């Protein structure tokens, strides 16, 4: 009898959910298709972040399974162009690629297929190429990193106050992928966040030269810890650094999503870009027949820059409240991450800085980016261009 009831219940649920799916189909543009080109797959926190955003947007917009086509593990070579061509052939209206090195190959496809929209995350060339169907997007993640840095600074203050370390031993470590603007802007904002609450803090940065190399990331984190770093953060895509931190019981500030499940004792907080608003945006623009911005920057306000839950087990007391306070100041524009009065370069105050905003093969600095004492990141193009080496941060390699 019980089995019978159960099976009836199950049947009802299945029919109901089928109806739900069918009705939601009816509301969307049925023939819309999105193609997503990913450098790696779910194993990389970076790509997983994109997959999760696409899935959230899919649910939000009521898209069906076959309206989104993923291409996983696409290298930064002609294979990216070929994947784009294949997606065009499969009827995609918008094709999105997630890795910096995909850009030229996406551009090649965009020039060939002018009736398809090509969107590229982290790229730098849309605002100078001026194609109608090629777009860059990024988010003001430096604001998220600054907040994550505040959480790190509070943790270090706690360690100083409890007598675990002295103020002059307050050194953080940072595992970075490649030494270019995207990473430099990230670690600098993280450092400035920490410094805003803990003035004596310094930081060592170790680069791995790869976006995803678990062994190198582990080695780098281990080396930093052995060098006296008492807190680690990273901008590379494997679980290498957080894993080492959990093993050695060193606090970790993560990126691209919470790592609390694997690191329950050391994970403090994580900042990430939530790409969902962007996917919703490009879908809406496309279905309305309106142009997609050549260079789109998501912010805290658009919901593109988010922090994970704070892990109270590892974070200092009062972290949540402090983060809310700083976040409100950032959103209101009372506080600027790259306020030039908060850092020096080579011992000198910074009043002017030319950044390489328009990409050229010689990497010529071309645009003045300091206005009224503030270095304006992501204002002249979405992808970061803060590449100054400020005092207090030591690059080990």
């Amino acid at each position, binding site marked *: 009898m019980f089995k019978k009831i159960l099976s009836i219940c199950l049947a009802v649920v299945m029919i109901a959910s089928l109806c739900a799916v069918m009705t939601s189909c009816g509301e969307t543009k049925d023939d819309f298709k999105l193609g997503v080109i990913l450098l790696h797959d779910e194993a990389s926190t970076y790509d997983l972040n994109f997959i999760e955003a696409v899935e959230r947007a899919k649910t939000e917009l009521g898209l069906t399974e076959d309206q989104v086509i993923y291409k996983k593990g696409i290298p930064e070579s*002609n294979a990216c162009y070929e994947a784009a061509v294949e997606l065009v052939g499969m009827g995609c209206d918008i094709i999105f690629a997630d890795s910096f090195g995909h850009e030229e190959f996406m551009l090649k496809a965009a020039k060939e297929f002018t009736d398809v929209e090509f969107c590229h995350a982290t790229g730098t060339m849309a605002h100078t190429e001026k194609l109608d169907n090629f777009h860059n997007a990024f988010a003001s993640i430096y604001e998220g990193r600054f907040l994550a840095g505040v959480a790190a600074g509070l943790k270090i203050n706690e360690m100083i106050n409890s007598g675990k370390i002295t103020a002059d031993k307050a050194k953080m470590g940072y595992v970075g992928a490649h030494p270019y603007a995207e990473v430099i802007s990230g670690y600098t904002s993280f450092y400035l966040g920490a410094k805003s609450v803990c003035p004596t803090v310094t930081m060592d940065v170790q680069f791995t030269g790869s976006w995803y190399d678990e062994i190198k990331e582990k080695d780098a984190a281990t080396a930093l810890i052995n060098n006296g770093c008492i807190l680690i953060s990273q901008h590379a895509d494997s679980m290498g650094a957080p894993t080492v931190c959990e093993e050695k019981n060193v606090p970790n500030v993560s990126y691209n999503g919470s790592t609390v499940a694997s690191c329950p004792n050391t994970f403090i907080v994580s900042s990430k870009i939530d790409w969902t608003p962007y996917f919703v945006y490009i879908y809406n623009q496309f279905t309305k027949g309106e142009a997609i911005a050549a260079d789109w920057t998501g912010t805290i306000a658009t919901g593109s820059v988010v922090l994970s839950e704070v892990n109270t087990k590892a974070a200092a007391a009062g972290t949540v409240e402090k983060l809310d306070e700083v976040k409100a100041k950032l959103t209101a524009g009372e506080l600027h991450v790259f306020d030039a009065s908060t850092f020096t370069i080579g011992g000198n105050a910074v009043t002017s800085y030319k950044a390489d905003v328009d990409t050229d093969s010689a990497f010529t600095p071309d645009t003045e980016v300091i206005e009224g004492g503030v270095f304006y990141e992501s204002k002249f193009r979405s992808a970061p261009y803060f590449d100054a080496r400020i005092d207090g941060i030591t690059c080990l390699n």
Partner: protein
Amino acid sequence: MKNRKFELPFHIVKRDTMPLWKSLAVRVAAIVISLLLCSVLSVLLINKSPLVFFETMFKAVFSRDILIWQFAKDTAVLLCIALAITPAFRMRFWNIGAEGQTLIGALAAVTVAFYLGESLPNGILLIVMFAAAVLAGGLWGFLPAVFKAKWNANETLFTLMMNYVAMELVNFCISVWVQSGSGVLTPLSVGHLPTVLNSYFLLIAIVLVITVIIHIYLRQTKQGYEISVVGESENTARYVGIEVNKVIIRTMIISGAICGIAGFLIVGALDHTVSAESTVGGLGFIAIMVSWLAKFNPLAMIGTSAFITFLRRGTKNLAIRAAFPDIVVGTVLFFIIGCEFFINYKIKFRKANTTDKGGKA
């Protein structure tokens, strides 16, 4: 005390040579079973009927002209690298450095285009790029061969390490060239191979010519014969007056040089840039299986490289993890290698307390 000997309930005996049709049937059966297994695996992973697996595979490879061209192009690149390692393998010189030899060829071609692209006309630039790639690949083959010939250094480890040297050299060059530090060299606008029909045809045609040349070289020339003799037995080779060291070094230079050509073709026709991770992307290792499956026969390699490329391209679109194509290729290869055992040996089960003599009354 009396030792009681443990006996397995079966033993393994070498077979007489199996008739060709029978051994082929075993191999085909192995492939079919392995593919069925992979389709079952796909059912577990994506929860769709096993037919979807085969349908997606064929669709992904053959459903449109451009896909067929890409399939032919991927086959040609893999074939070119497989051809390169074949002379060495026929000599029983286990060159697993094709990855690095191809990459260093690609790096050499990009270096030439990077520094001389502005000053040379495209035709001459391409010739210089080609020459540089052949020299660089040849050098990457020459070094392990010299160490093997002079000091009997282990060629497997040596060629493997040369892969990493090539990769780090690529990373080093990119860090010098790309001052922004992004680690990505923007594709160059110079040094592109001319487009004939489409951007793939010329590459495919060149590889086919190389296939024929290697086939003739190995089968019809004195040097090709020397390679076979050295492979069979170095002592025999010495006895009949072949200079073994010379053959080893010469063959490895050829091996590396053809890898260099593959690198040149990847740069000139496809990528126009170089990257330690993306340019060769493991093809140097897959090529070993292509060559082995074809029993080191260049013409048969057209078939084996097409087969492996079909598996890799076909399984890319199943919306499973990026590693799935590798899992499929690995599974199929496992069955093919496994079935060789059953072609060469048979298992005889013992009856209790009787010695099986294999004869019939």
